[in-house]
């Protein structure tokens, strides 16, 4: 069920009957709108500066600016790509497979304005399953834009320190349109086919984290290892940055998850609570695992674990109770530790900053556990009185959604990377990599 299915038109009419006139013109809720405005800003905080600093702190000094710029540039690029076509392809009504071109260049986004007041808009209008919103379309579109921004920015962790900036820019445009927008439509549009068979993703475990994590793994494999991998000192430049970045991610995640309730309501409150305890559990799980494994609980470890917990609770945040959230955080912290610290080195791929190890693996863990732990009343509506209930059946639906996302992300990401490699080239030269991307690509350096 898509997260914004507040109520169907018919159910809303029933709920506020007998005033049928009101039901016909659903109203903006100022409280909901205020919270969604705040949430949108919080999600943007996750990318610039949160993810930027998180990643920049983990690369070497000669690549710090290049890494920070990647997040910033992706923000600029996707903002416009989303405006031009991404939003329309993802959330235009269209078919179960893809949206339409009705909102290209945000055409018609001011149609709801009457005397300067914005009417609520209907997501999936004209389809068999319209969803009435209590916020303006501009806010909904902008909130979704921040998700579209952070997703390709997450991938950048896998190819840090070696990708050409031009390749990154082209990849971001194409990946946003060909991978992100379709998957967002499948999962979150009221008529999307993945949501249609009952798979749920509250705030982007599948759309954002699995999608980006898998794309990250593919990119790491296609682009190859960094020069000096397992030989030279590739240790982080400044973990203080990484800690600040992770802390900003944590704070911003409240907008990500509690904002995905679509309004200021009990579900948003519960999502905020589950987010907090899952992040805490994830941080402690990684810390303890590392303490046992290598005898020291590191700063990088505890922040990585907290991010793993945040990732894993993302699909579940509005579906599970706090106890289950702690369990999800603990499991994700442990599994992501294993994936990033042990599995990666055993398999030998160079996912520089563990985009796959944390986001891919954490997202899969969270998406599957959502199917087991979902507590019905949290998502119940008049149209669906029992809500999404944890069960083996739901677990299988989740697994199907995970599988579909993985296949699409692997195939299209791979083709895109190969096409870019054959045309403008994907990777900087060996000399450029040794000198550092800051100076070679951007003509700047930190002292």
């Amino acid at each position, binding site marked *: 069920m898509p997260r914004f299915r507040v109520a169907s038109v018919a159910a809303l009419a029933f709920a506020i009957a007998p005033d049928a006139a009101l039901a016909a013109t659903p109203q903006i809720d100022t409280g909901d709108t205020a919270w969604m405005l705040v949430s949108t800003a919080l999600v943007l905080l996750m990318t610039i500066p949160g993810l930027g600093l998180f990643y920049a702190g*983990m690369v070497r000094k000669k690549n710090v600016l290049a890494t920070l710029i990647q997040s910033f540039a992706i923000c600029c690029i996707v903002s416009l790509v989303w405006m031009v076509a991404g939003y329309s392809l993802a959330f235009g009504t269209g078919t179960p497979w893809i949206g339409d071109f009705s909102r290209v260049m945000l055409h018609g986004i001011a149609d709801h304005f009457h005397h300067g007041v914005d009417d609520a808009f209907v997501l999936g209008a004209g389809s068999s399953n319209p969803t009435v919103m209590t916020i303006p379309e501009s806010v909904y579109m902008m909130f979704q834009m921040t998700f579209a921004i952070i997703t390709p920015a997450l991938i950048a962790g896998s190819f840090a320190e070696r990708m050409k900036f031009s390749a990154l820019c082209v990849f971001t445009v194409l990946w946003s349109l060909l991978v992100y927008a379709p998957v967002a439509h499948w999962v979150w549009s009221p008529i999307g086919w993945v949501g249609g068979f009952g798979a749920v993703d509250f705030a982007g475990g599948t759309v954002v984290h699995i999608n980006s994590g898998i794309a990250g793994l593919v990119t790491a494999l296609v682009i190859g290892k960094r020069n000096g991998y397992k030989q030279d000192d590739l*240790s982080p430049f400044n973990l203080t940055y990484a800690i600040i970045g992770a802390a900003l991610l944590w704070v911003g995640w409240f907008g990500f998850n509690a904002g995905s309730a679509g309004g200021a309501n009990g579900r948003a409150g519960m999502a905020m609570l589950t987010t907090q305890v899952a992040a805490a559990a994830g941080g402690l799980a990684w810390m303890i695992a590392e303490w046992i494994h*290598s005898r020291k609980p*590191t700063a990088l*470890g505890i922040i990585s674990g907290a991010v793993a917990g945040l990732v894993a609770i993302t699909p579940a945040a509005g579906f599970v109770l706090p106890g289950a959230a702690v369990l999800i955080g603990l499991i994700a912290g442990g599994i992501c530790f294993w994936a*990033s*610290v042990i599995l990666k*080195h055993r398999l030998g791929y160079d996912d520089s900053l563990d985009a796959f190890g944390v986001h891919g693996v954490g997202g899969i863990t969270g998406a599957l556990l959502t199917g087991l732990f979902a507590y019905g009343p949290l998502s119940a509506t008049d149209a669906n009185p029992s809500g999404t209930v944890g069960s083996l059946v739901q677990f299988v639906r989740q697994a199907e959604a995970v599988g579909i996302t993985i296949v699409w992300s692997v195939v299209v990401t791979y083709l895109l990377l190969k096409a870019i490699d054959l045309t403008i080239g994907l990777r900087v030269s060996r000399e450029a990599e040794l000198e550092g991307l800051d100076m070679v690509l951007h003509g700047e350096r930190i002292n």
Partner: protein
Amino acid sequence: MKLVTAIIKPFKLDDVREALTPLGVQGLTVTEIRGFGRQKGQTEIYRGAEYHVSFLPKVKIEIAVSEAIVDEVVETILSAAHTGKIGDGKIFVSPLDRVIRIRTRETGEGAL
């Protein structure tokens, strides 16, 4: 006159300075340096990846002293900079031919 050069762990600097003051050591030059000895650096682990750090941060102290107190100075540094763990550092004692105080042009032990 001798030049005593001691490579020590950075956090031992204050201990060494406090121990030397009562001996009548007049001046002391401190430099932050990096290097390695028999230990050949150390290994750090980030997310499971081991990185070998060849050059470890150390502090170099240089002290010009008269022959009369050189043994006492060396012994004091040995005690104050000692932790018993690997990487405590080294002391080099070398002859010092001339010392000149720039302000007064004094030379020899009078300039120390």
